[in-house]
């Protein structure tokens, strides 16, 4: 928090940003909507809505399949989006950019293609105790299929991964380390550079779950040095149903396809099928073309805001909200890592998170309540659920004030 307060005031104009998002101009339960559920899904700016609409009204046809004008235009739009995603991640080549439905599918792709083909008894996959179910269950499935073992690095009471323990779990048996760059349930920013370094020195590959990281800071997969990076479009103000799996080319090259069908083949006969080049080898079937177009527009939009200025803005909101909640009686903040993204999980004494969610909703304030697809985190902190406010580019100090007022209302109802 000290670091957040130390950031310069900056000139990020969230009020202006807010006007780019038509959905925010509405009232919910008679109150101006205060949307604080950005960690679950961001909203879409006009630029994204228009890009998708333009594609759908002028360009759509199937990709890679025809000689007619629209098919070519759609292919250009789709492959253009891939190049946009490459730049967004600073990947070396578009061959390393696989379009998927989202983070979940990206992780499953690696688990099933890399994991199932390469892992066996005696091999270990290492994750951490703060992972989203999407970065737990696919690995459990691979373990069941191949006989390899899942290891879990513990977290501490602040919600930080115990780095020494994680390093201690690394060995020559470790084949893959899969961790979130930012925790969705706690907001913890994980020191992934350090983890990548240590994993590589043991000969293990690293997959980063970037779902909660991409909308808050510039991502450079080459600087991070990771082998795989997965994220979802809808967390960075793009459409749902589209995301990216980045994989280092040498690795993707060696990995078998994970789904079969059109698009991913070169030749098919009943005796023998040869596969397409990267990245299409991993893209069986007609892809989400308009989603990719929308995702590219979202990346343009996000970068136009200036990711550094945005990060500073969100840190200011986090610091304000944290300070305000600490002053409220009976509030306990869950997740107090030294480095946090703008995610604030908490509980209120005498008021179950579910009731809190309903009271806040009645005041027009949308937050998430529940286990946030991170049941092991809830178990660790011995809570059934938490309330979570998460901030994005269009949130303002007024939103923080509305959150606090709504929490006071909850206190009034629940005494």
């Amino acid at each position, binding site marked *: 928090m000290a670091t957040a307060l130390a950031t310069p005031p900056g000139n990020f104009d969230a009020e202006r940003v807010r006007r780019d998002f038509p959905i925010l101009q509405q009232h919910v*339960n*008679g109150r101006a909507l205060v949307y604080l559920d950005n960690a679950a899904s961001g909203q879409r700016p006009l630029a994204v809505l228009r890009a998708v609409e333009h594609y759908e009204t002028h360009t759509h046809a199937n990709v890679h399949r025809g000689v007619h004008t629209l098919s070519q235009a759609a292919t250009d739009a789709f492959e253009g989006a891939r190049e946009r995603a490459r730049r967004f991640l600073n990947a070396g080549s578009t061959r390393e950019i696989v379009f998927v439905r989202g983070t979940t599918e990206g992780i499953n792709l690696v688990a099933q293609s890399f994991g199932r083909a390469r892992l066996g008894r005696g091999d270990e996959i290492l994750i951490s105790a703060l992972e989203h179910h999407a970065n737990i269950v696919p690995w459990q499935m691979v373990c069941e299929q191949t006989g390899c073992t899942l290891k879990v690095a513990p977290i501490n009471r602040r919600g930080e991964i115990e780095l020494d323990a994680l390093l201690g779990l690394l060995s020559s048996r470790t084949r893959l380390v899969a961790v979130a760059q930012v925790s969705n349930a706690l907001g913890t920013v994980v020191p992934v550079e350090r983890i990548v370094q240590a994993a590589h020195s043991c000969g293990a590959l690293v997959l980063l779950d970037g779902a909660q990281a991409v909308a808050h800071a510039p991502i450079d997969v080459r600087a991070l040095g990771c082998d795989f990076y997965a994220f979802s479009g809808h967390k960075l103000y793009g459409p749902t149903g589209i995301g990216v799996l980045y994989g280092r080319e040498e690795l993707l090259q060696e990995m078998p396809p994970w789904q079969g069908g059109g698009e991913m083949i070169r030749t098919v006969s009943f005796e023998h099928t040869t596969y397409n080049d990267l990245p299409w080898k991993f893209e069986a079937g007609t892809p989400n073309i308009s989603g990719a177009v929308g995702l590219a527009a979202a990346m343009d939009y996000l970068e136009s805001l200036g990711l550094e200025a945005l990060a500073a803005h969100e840190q200011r909101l986090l610091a304000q909200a944290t300070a305000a909640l600490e002053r409220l009686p009976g509030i306990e903040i869950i997740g107090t890592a030294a480095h946090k993204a703008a995610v604030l999980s908490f509980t209120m004494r*005498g*008021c*179950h*998170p*579910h*009731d809190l969610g*309903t*009271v806040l*909703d*009645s005041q027009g304030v949308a937050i998430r*309540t*529940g*286990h946030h697809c991170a049941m092991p985190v*809830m178990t660790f902190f011995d809570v*059934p*659920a938490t309330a979570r406010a998460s901030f994005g580019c269009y949130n303002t100090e007024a939103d923080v004030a509305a959150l606090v007022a709504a929490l006071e209302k909850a206190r009034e*109802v*629940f*005494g």
Partner: protein
Amino acid sequence: MDLKDLYRDVILDHNRQPRNFGALAHSDAHAEGHNPLCGDRLTVWLRFDGDRIADIRFEGKGCAISTASASLMTEAVKGKDKAAIKELYDRIHVLLTEPHAVADASLGKLAALGGVNEFPARVKCATLCWHTLNAALERSADAVSTEE
């Protein structure tokens, strides 16, 4: 959407001081209910006197709606037989889920759950205890039927 309609005084009171709360010693049947979506957990214990529920207690962690609903349920079903409980549950279900349902006087304090109707996301909270009770009743029936 009126908060006062959902969180009526009876609900808040039973949430703060749930009745028949805590394990029941020497129970004839029990069942656990779980709503994975919100993490609510609930155990219901029963003791029978013939076909009637002689005693019922519950324990669990949940939101105000789920806790109050369970507390009100234990008061309402004590002394009733299975047929009467089934009939009561059907009426509660209508109250919680049918549009514009109104509680009739015969529901007694359970009528306080009427506000849940307007909050579809919360219906499951109110019904968890009833599903758990039904599971315990079925289990007791099974146990009886499988007895040598």
